[in-house]
């Protein structure tokens, strides 16, 4: 490398000469780092992928937590149930939702079966009539009669409610049209083994077991379970001064007093059973077809991410690369075997074109005038050759699309633990971002023209997957193929490019 020896007489010069001849080859990561810094746009698909993945995890986490919450509340109800079965609480309230003449609604009765209770004449009834008056009526053995209350700003005066409770009560009152009868006479109520007590410390509901289960389920299913609970902290045992104190009063009427709401919850449950959300990610091999050309292999391999490399009969050499699909798929069970599917999907496809840098030159595209059908040419200045010469470089064509798949899923085989399904969907999509180097009409250069890129597209998706897991969490894994039905380019450009992705879809779902 160096023939002459280090010369002491000219130390600095000799040192400089030797040091300057020293060279090291940097590793690939250096250029990758520089490239990512210079072209951050090429980095954002991976960032998007990361964000989507994090969002998916957060969604799953949220769903899991809300499930736990419901389970926790359900269990607290069960605990209360067992407590009420053993000991009779001090203050009990009987919700009697019999048909009421003033409301005129057919309502479900939550009346106690116990004859003692049914014969009990001590009932506190809060009746909201159409004239927007609230009457709290109390029939007592001592003959104190019904205490009638005007709704407007008189809760606290007449019933002894705290002001915030009054406000809450007023708000809730607007939402109810039914009759609620409360029995404050705790001592007259019997201990019932088939009654269910909600909120053991403050409120106990004595209802028919069947109805109670309905209530309980509808409450547990509700997102606003915390708001459902009405805490009646104190019902004065002296019937003559029946006094209610509501610490929190909200949607109890919507669930206990409005059977329509309960019915809608039931319908919601039925829907929930049929609906399944699957969050998935699909690493794909992205490639494309050009004008339906047959592809032939090429030994040249340019990019480290290249999966395989091919050349088309029109002279293009290109590499398939790695892409991805991610999103959420919602299925609705039509029958045991058939499901409708929809959702949203993010699809990133890319491939490398093998090119070579050239001196700036003119390239021509032959385009079609869509209104007249006449052909015309458009000139571009380009730096990119067809990749057939020395000094090959890779040009990345990429496409990021957001789509809403609409399709159908069929269960080929399965039992409770495992199923094999096939699914197919069409995917109308919006192209969020794209970049494409288009081969010139003489097939010798590549040019860029964003105006030729299609903004909306249509894709087709087919996949088979195996589903397995527990009742709550299911995994869905299987091969998936995506084919872009319309060309990447507008019809003005005579060439057609159809993106094709092959991948393995990995999904997770939670059943309600």
């Amino acid at each position, binding site marked *: *490398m*160096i023939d002459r*020896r*280090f010369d*002491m007489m000219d*130390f*600095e010069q000799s*040192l*400089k000469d*030797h*040091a*300057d*001849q*020293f*060279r*090291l*080859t*940097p*590793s690939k*990561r*250096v*250029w990758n*780092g*520089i*490239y990512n*810094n*210079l*072209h951050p746009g090429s980095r954002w698909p991976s960032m998007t992928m990361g964000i989507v993945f994090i969002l998916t995890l957060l969604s799953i986490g949220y769903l899991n937590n809300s499930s736990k919450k419901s389970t926790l509340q359900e269990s607290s109800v069960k605990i209360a149930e067992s407590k009420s079965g053993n000991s009779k609480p001090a203050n009990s309230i009987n919700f009697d939702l019999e048909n009421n003449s003033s409301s005129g609604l057919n309502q479900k009765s939550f009346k106690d079966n116990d004859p003692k209770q049914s014969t009990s004449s001590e009932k506190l009834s809060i009746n909201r009539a159409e004239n927007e008056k609230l009457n709290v009526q109390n029939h007592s053995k001592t003959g104190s009669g019904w205490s009638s209350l005007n709704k407007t700003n008189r809760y606290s005066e007449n019933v002894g409610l705290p002001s915030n409770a009054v406000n809450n009560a007023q708000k809730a009152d607007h939402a109810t049209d039914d009759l609620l009868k409360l029995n404050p006479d705790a001592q007259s109520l019997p201990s019932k083994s088939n009654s269910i007590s909600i909120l053991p410390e403050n409120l106990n509901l004595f209802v028919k077991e069947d109805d109670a289960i309905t209530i309980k389920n509808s409450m547990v299913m509700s997102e606003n379970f915390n708001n459902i609970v009405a805490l009646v902290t104190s019902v004065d045992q002296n019937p003559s001064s029946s006094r209610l104190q509501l610490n929190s009063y909200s949607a109890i009427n919507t669930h206990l007093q409005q059977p329509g709401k309960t019915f809608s919850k039931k319908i919601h449950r039925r829907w929930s059973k049929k609906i399944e959300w699957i969050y998935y990610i699909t690493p794909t091999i992205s490639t494309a077809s050009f004008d339906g050309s047959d592809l032939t292999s090429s030994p040249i391999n340019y990019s480290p991410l290249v999966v395989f490399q091919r050349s088309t009969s029109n002279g293009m050499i290109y590499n398939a690369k790695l892409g991805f699909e991610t999103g959420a798929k919602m299925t609705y069970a039509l029958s045991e075997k058939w499901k409708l599917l929809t959702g949203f999907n993010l699809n990133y496809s890319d491939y490398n074109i093998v*090119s070579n*840098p050239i*001196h700036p030159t003119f390239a021509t595209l032959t385009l079609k005038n869509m209104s007249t059908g006449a052909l015309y040419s458009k000139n571009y200045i380009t*730096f*990119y050759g067809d990749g057939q010469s020395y*000094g090959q*470089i890779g040009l990345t064509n990429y496409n990021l699309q957001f789509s809403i798949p609409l399709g159908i899923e069929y269960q080929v085989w399965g039992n409770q633990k495992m199923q094999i399904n096939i699914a197919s969907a069409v995917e109308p999509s919006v192209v969020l971002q794209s970049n494409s180097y288009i081969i010139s009409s003489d097939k010798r250069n590549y040019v860029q023209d964003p105006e030729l890129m299609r903004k909306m597209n249509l894709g087709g998706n087919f996949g088979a997957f195996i589903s397995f897991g527990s009742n709550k969490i299911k995994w869905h894994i299987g091969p998936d193929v995506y084919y872009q039905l319309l060309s990447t380019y507008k019809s003005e450009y005579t060439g057609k490019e159809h993106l094709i992705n092959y991948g393995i879809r990995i999904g997770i779902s939670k059943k309600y």
Partner: protein
Amino acid sequence: MTEESILQGCLDNLSFAQEELYKRFSPKMLGVCYRYAHSREDAEDMLQEGFIKVYAQIQQFKGSGSLEGWIRKIVVHTCINLLKKNKKFSDSVDLVYASNIKINENNIPSMLQAKQVVDCIRLLPIGYRTVLNLYAIEGYSHKEISSILEIEESTSRSQYTRARGLLEDILIKKKILQKPRENVSMVAIK
């Protein structure tokens, strides 16, 4: 590709031109970084940082000097800045300790001469090495070095003198450098 077309491509933010520029100058610039850095990894970090600055400031290159010289200047300044930032430079400028450093000859790898010389330079304490690199190889004056490294000009001079002496010793031990004739003759007289 000619240097002009590469430059034009870089100005147009064309990736192939940027890559071409990198391919052309990165081996030599990594050699420069390697002389300043503690390790190969540090050198690559310096190179990466340096080239990012090169691309960012490429429009400032007026063509008055050579492109290589301009890139080298940016890379060297990047190396110094990174050394300062990582406090690796200030850790070992102490002259007293440096004068007592004993070179373990086993640490000097036997390779081709350019690499041997560079490896010998890298055996110097980083303070010495930096001054030596800047003065003897990059051609900065002591005044410029004092400004770049934020040290006294006299410190730069004395560090260079000691660095040179230490390097000579290493090179002689490695038999890369022949002893000066005066010394040889002095040995003969003795």
